[in-house]
């Protein structure tokens, strides 16, 4: 497989996965804010922190109003990870490897891109937002479904899976980091902590699975444990890392790659989850994110066009 093609497939998957996650984030925050009293609400600003674009955002907007944040997250051309930009990039990726992906994949990504482009106003609109974002999530899932069912599960598919899983793990760390930071500032006695933790789970579409695996109580430590250590939940870090390891073991010249992934897994298991609070949690997640970035760099170094 050509290095350029492997790289393009990887980014195609990452970009679609990113679009899906952005849609989830916005949708869940939307629902959460309806439940929180105005005074304690963290508002929309955390979303900008989650996607790591605080500086870029402030170059274009002076406040964090719902309208501005939503515009930035969904259709803003200045935000490299906006819904529209992610899908536009995925579409360009797909176009350049049209000869290796099933036609239906191209068609789904193309029509999803056009959908977002054509519904730009309604995505911001409070009433219609939910429906359109849900459509984005569904369509992204469909793309991965079509891929799973129609492309040969060979090297190309390995890079697609890799891109999707790495993006997912990355987003999970971001959500945990930012959400636990805003939560810290909340007064202890307010009943809203629970709701917020539920929303963390929901933005990772992990609520049901959490309950099944961890029991009924929503507690910060348990949620962290679940999101970091679950071997079964497909958005948990351990799950993603294990999958990545499995994928890499099928690739040629993989010694360095395996070393990096093993290091991250070992590190994860060494953590004392109960102690992961506040600053310690933030520092550990920083480390984890660096690990994920290293895994990407190593992949690029080993297999992509230089």
């Amino acid at each position: 497989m050509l290095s350029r093609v492997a790289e393009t497939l990887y980014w195609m998957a990452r970009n679609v996965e990113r679009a899906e996650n952005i849609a989830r984030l916005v949708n869940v925050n939307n629902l959460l804010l309806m439940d929180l009293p105005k005074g304690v609400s963290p508002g929309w600003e955390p979303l900008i922190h989650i996607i790591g674009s605080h500086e870029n955002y402030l170059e274009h907007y002076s406040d964090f109003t719902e309208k501005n944040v939503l515009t930035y997250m969904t259709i803003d051309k200045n935000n490299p990870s906006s819904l529209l930009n992610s899908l536009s990039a995925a579409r360009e990726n797909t176009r350049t490897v049209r000869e290796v992906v099933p036609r239906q994949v191209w068609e789904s990504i193309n029509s999803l891109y056009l959908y977002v482009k054509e519904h730009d106003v309604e995505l911001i609109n409070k009433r219609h937002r939910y429906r359109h974002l849900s459509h984005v999530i569904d369509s992204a899932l469909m793309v991965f479904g079509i891929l799973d069912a129609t492309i040969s599960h060979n090297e190309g598919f390995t890079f697609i899976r890799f891109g999707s899983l790495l993006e997912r793990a990355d987003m999970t760390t971001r959500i945990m980091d930012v959400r636990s930071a805003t939560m810290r500032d909340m007064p202890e006695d307010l009943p809203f902590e629970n709701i917020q933790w539920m929303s963390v789970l929901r933005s990772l579409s992990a609520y049901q699975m959490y309950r099944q695996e961890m029991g009924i109580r929503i507690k910060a430590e348990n949620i962290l444990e679940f999101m970091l250590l679950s071997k079964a939940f497909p958005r948990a870090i351990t799950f993603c890392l294990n999958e990545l390891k499995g994928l890499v073991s099928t690739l040629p010249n993989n010694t360095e790659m395996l070393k990096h992934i093993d290091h991250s897994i070992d590190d994860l298991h060494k953590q004392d989850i109960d102690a992961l609070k506040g600053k310690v949690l933030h520092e550990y997640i920083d480390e984890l994110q660096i690990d994920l970035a290293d895994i990407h760099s190593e992949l690029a170094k080993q297999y992509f066009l230089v």
Partner: protein
Amino acid sequence: MAIDWKNYQFKSFFDELIDKDGKPRAHSHKLIKFLSDLSDSDLNSARAAADFAIKEMGITFTVYGEGSSIDRNWPMDIIPRIIDNREWKKIEIGLEQRVKALNMFINDLYHDQKIIKDGIFPKELISKSVNFRQQCMGITPPHNIWAHICGSDLVRDHDGTMYVLEDNLRVPSGVSYMLENRSVMKRVFPEMFEHIDILPVNDYSSQLFDMLCAMSPRPHDTPEVVVLTPGIFNSAYFEHCYLAQEMGCELVEGRDLQVDKNDCVYMKTINGLRRVDVIYRRIDDLFIDPEAFNPDSQLGVPGLLRAWRAGNVALVNAPGAGVADDKVVYTYVPQMIEYYLSEKMLLPNVETYRCYEPDDYKYVIENIEKLVVKPANESGGYGLLIGPKSTKKQQQECIAQIKADPRNYIAQPTLSLSTVPTLDGDKTEGRHVDLRPFVLSSGKQTYVTTGGLTRVAMVKGSLVVNSSQGGGSKDTWIVDGENS
């Protein structure tokens, strides 16, 4: 009845399906009968089915707009163009003869230039040729073949004679559309294929692959063949993808390849470097190697020419083959055929005036309103003046251009291109067509496509068939006359 054959208009033109008395030709009886039985709604749904198939199959071509490019659905008319197999056999032999002579000519030019020394071909034409590549002097590609793939444009005049209008020896395109037109027709009119013996066209991709493999510098191994594309923004990108897919080989861009110190070409894969033997390149000469040609090219591969010269990789078509693409060189094809093959030309050229020859020059300037004037080295219908359809101002501008550079212009009488019935709105009218067959040469064997790509000027009265200029296409059928 949907198609009103009684009032079918084709005036003084030669129509490919209907004879001068308004009756179907021997080879088109069954087709015309079939079409006559279709109602308006049958025709409309057939047309809609064709449009849908084209959209669904993603058959597109790219038009360059201002600053951006647009992917358009490929335009195809559902009434096919038919040629009798007996006539086609003769055309085939004529094309083989022509391409053989052209290859010998190119090889001669890059070696001893005997044809110049013997006074048949003027030396000045080479020194002023924009497609002659000094870098190729003395190189002998495998089996002396330079133009492995040739797309020659054929037109039929009002007297029914088929002429060669021009030869495309650089990177001729269109073959994927010939193949896709047939797939669409099979979906839209399966009944036609039941009743009429239409010769198949789908052998092309295997023939192409075999020819490419035969060029490999390592004939004993399984050769690694790749298609080299300038990338997604090229107007023929669809075709590059299509052919790579059909042949099951990699579609590469310049940055996927590299040439090492030993002058071998490698592609960069996730397993490391893999040796490449044959490159079917769809990038123009001047952009394939920044080291040898245009140093600013981002599309090419530094060192590619070195590797080719060393015989470590085959380039198809060979760099420099475009020298015979020149429309002035074209006028010498009859002499080439006589000189190299001692044969008479079987498939005639269109009468052509060479503007650098004083008598011809005078004639062209005085009769410009009757002539078609073409620059010697443009393709895609760019820079063309059609005398009878031009304004005085355009003619004056054209004359000024000829005066400035007579070597670079030729003129031909305005041909009355043949027509084929074509659906336009709810009418069926004659529209002008040409035909581009493709000829593959491996040195051991020559293959001519069964028919070719019929291009049609969709606008009433227009003679411009290029898809970049609003032309369309038709499926081309070669049928046995007695069975039609």
